[in-house]
């Protein structure tokens, strides 16, 4: 069953990667530092009054702290008003589609003019086993500004969850399952472990096939004039559908090394090169959970659209002991 996201428009997109040849963030730099730079560029350029932003959400599996939410730190750094809904969501592979869904709900239900959706990951800070694909994942931060619109076309969003494979993409550590006592008695946690990404390639590929069918992607991609943005393994799906995928869909596999942000990078590239006034899009994401989502939406091609590089880190956030 689809859900319908109405009265919403994407007003700006911004993306920031580390300014390093490896694509890895510098030592002190976090995902929120990258997302902060992306958001700042939008706010500075569009002269948005802080009071007009009613909510900020930060989607990531690599937040600054276990507590409080990194969205709070970003509120301070972006000098937003206290009249704000702010929280973190633990979402990585589906962050683009999920961010828009949650942002939409906060925008339409509250007295807010804009909602700022920030997301980012620093996979380079984790420990990896010998998995080539996960080793190639790059660090990034991204920002999406959404606003209300009476005239915009509604968005359509479908989800497919297979939680029986919840451990097929798993970062152990940093939580409280199978926790160990730290010190003599308490606390029990694995917080000191930055985590190791375990990716069960077979189960993840099987899931992509299941999701592709379940979400009805094959019929949706035949819609004339539609553009695709996706972090799916498109080559695999093409093989499975006897090479029946359209050329446009095959082109969508640009750079999956940005995981959940791949759709946004692809979208920003499309906006930069398109001569169309409006773009019709299908965003197909998959990620941990396992969860896949399919979002169809329209976007104006003259919106704010930034790609940045930065190595700046928030040194004030490096706090200890006597705070």
């Amino acid at each position, binding site marked *: *069953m689809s859900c*319908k996201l109405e009265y919403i428009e994407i007003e700006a997109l911004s993306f920031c990667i580390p300014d390093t040849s490896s694509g890895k963030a510098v030592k002190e730099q*976090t995902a929120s530092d990258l997302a902060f730079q992306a958001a700042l560029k939008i706010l500075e350029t569009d002269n948005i009054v802080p009071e007009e932003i009613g909510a900020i959400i930060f989607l990531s*599996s690599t*937040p600054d*702290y*276990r*507590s*409080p939410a990194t*969205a*709070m*730190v970003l*509120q301070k750094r972006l000098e937003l008003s206290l009249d*704000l809904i*702010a*929280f*973190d*969501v*633990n*979402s990585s592979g589906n962050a683009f589609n*999920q961010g828009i*869904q*949650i942002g939409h*709900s906060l925008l*339409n*239900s*509250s*007295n807010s003019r804009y909602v700022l959706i920030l997301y980012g990951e620093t996979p380079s800070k984790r420990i990896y086993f010998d998995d080539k694909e996960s080793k190639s994942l790059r660090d990034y931060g991204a920002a999406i500004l959404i606003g209300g619109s009476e005239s915009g076309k509604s968005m359509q969003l479908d*989800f*497919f*969850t*297979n*939680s029986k494979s*919840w451990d097929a*993409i*798993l*970062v*152990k*550590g*940093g*939580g*409280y*399952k199978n*926790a160990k*006592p730290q*010190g003599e*008695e*308490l*606390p029990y946690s694995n*917080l*000191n472990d930055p*985590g190791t990404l375990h990716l069960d390639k077979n189960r993840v590929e099987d899931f992509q096939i299941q999701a592709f069918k379940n979400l009805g992607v094959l019929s949706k991609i035949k819609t004339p004039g539609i553009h695709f943005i996706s972090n799916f393994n498109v080559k695999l799906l093409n093989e499975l559908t006897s090479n029946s995928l359209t050329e446009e869909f095959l082109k969508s596999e640009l750079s999956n090394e940005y995981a959940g942000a791949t759709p946004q990078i692809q979208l920003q590239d499309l906006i930069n090169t398109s001569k169309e006034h409006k773009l019709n899009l299908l965003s197909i994401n998959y990620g941990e*959970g396992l*969860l896949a*989502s399919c979002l169809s939406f329209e976007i104006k091609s003259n919106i704010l659209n930034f790609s940045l590089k930065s190595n700046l880190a928030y040194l004030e*956030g*490096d*706090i*200890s002991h006597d*705070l």
Partner: protein
Amino acid sequence: MRTSHYDNIRIAGLSVCLPEQTREVDSYVQVFGKENIAKFKKMTGVNSVSRALPEQTASDLGIEASKNLLEKLDVDKSKIKIVVFVSQKPNFRLPSSAYFIHNHLDLNSDCVCFDINLACSGFIYGLNTVAGMLQSYDIESKALLVTADTSIKSLAPNDRTMSMLFGDSGSACLLSKTYEAPEINFAFKSDGYRFKSIITPAGAYRNMGKPLERVKWSDDILRSDYDTHMKGMEVFGFSISDVPALAKEFLQYLDKTPEDYELFALHQANKYILKQFSRKMNVPIGKIHLVLDRYGNNSSNSIPLVLADIYGESQNDATPNVFMSGFGAGLSWACAEAVINKKIILEIVKSNRTYE
């Protein structure tokens, strides 16, 4: 003040699960001494706290509360389209524990899941998030909001201000989209300018690689950067000024007074703070139900615990108007008002069950 409003969302069920054991504050006498224990009890009103087993997680308590709710209220699971888990004590960094919960509840595949990282304001923020999300779904669609915490697991053992204060529990709240329902109103504020007021400095991706060894801080308490620290006076000031200020502003906005509510279900910070709320808001103390005396401060789960404690054994279907307020780390605070049918609030269950 950021506000939101709904007139098509019904709170259709609420269930709370506590661990089977509690710990008496008096049992800390060997660690903190008689005098400190007496002072603590007088100031906070906490006599005992609910305590999860070391191997029991917040999601375990949330699953038990959810199972109880789905079974006792005979919920059509195919209608559940959203599972949101609010906690500061998730199972892993990735994926969200909401998927783990979804799996153990055997829910349908057309359901979106995620975790929200918030503390004591989490129930109200979570309620608003799922109510807002349900707007884009069909009538009769349902959402499951699970809040749970095992706060003790990030506290330094000899931190007397914290380790005797916090309790562990989980809850499940079912929301349903209908054509018409009594209004639910919300008000929100966030103050990230004071994000250091309650913080676990290390353990995520800022301040990586800090030593595990505990050293003495200026308040003479041994802590590491993986232990949660609260700036007591700063948080106290916030709790007795900013929190009632938002509640007052919210009541003015709604054009209501404390007399319009049967119950004030407040975050169970400590007894003194709740008394101050009563005084500043002119709310009779009898309308502020206490659970912290028996279970302590239960973080995001305080409000569900209050509701289940007072209404959980009620057999009648009276529909009191309830005022709620949650406040804590962030700093983050929020108020809500809702009409809740007593009959859908279940008796508290206790469990030590764990899930793999």
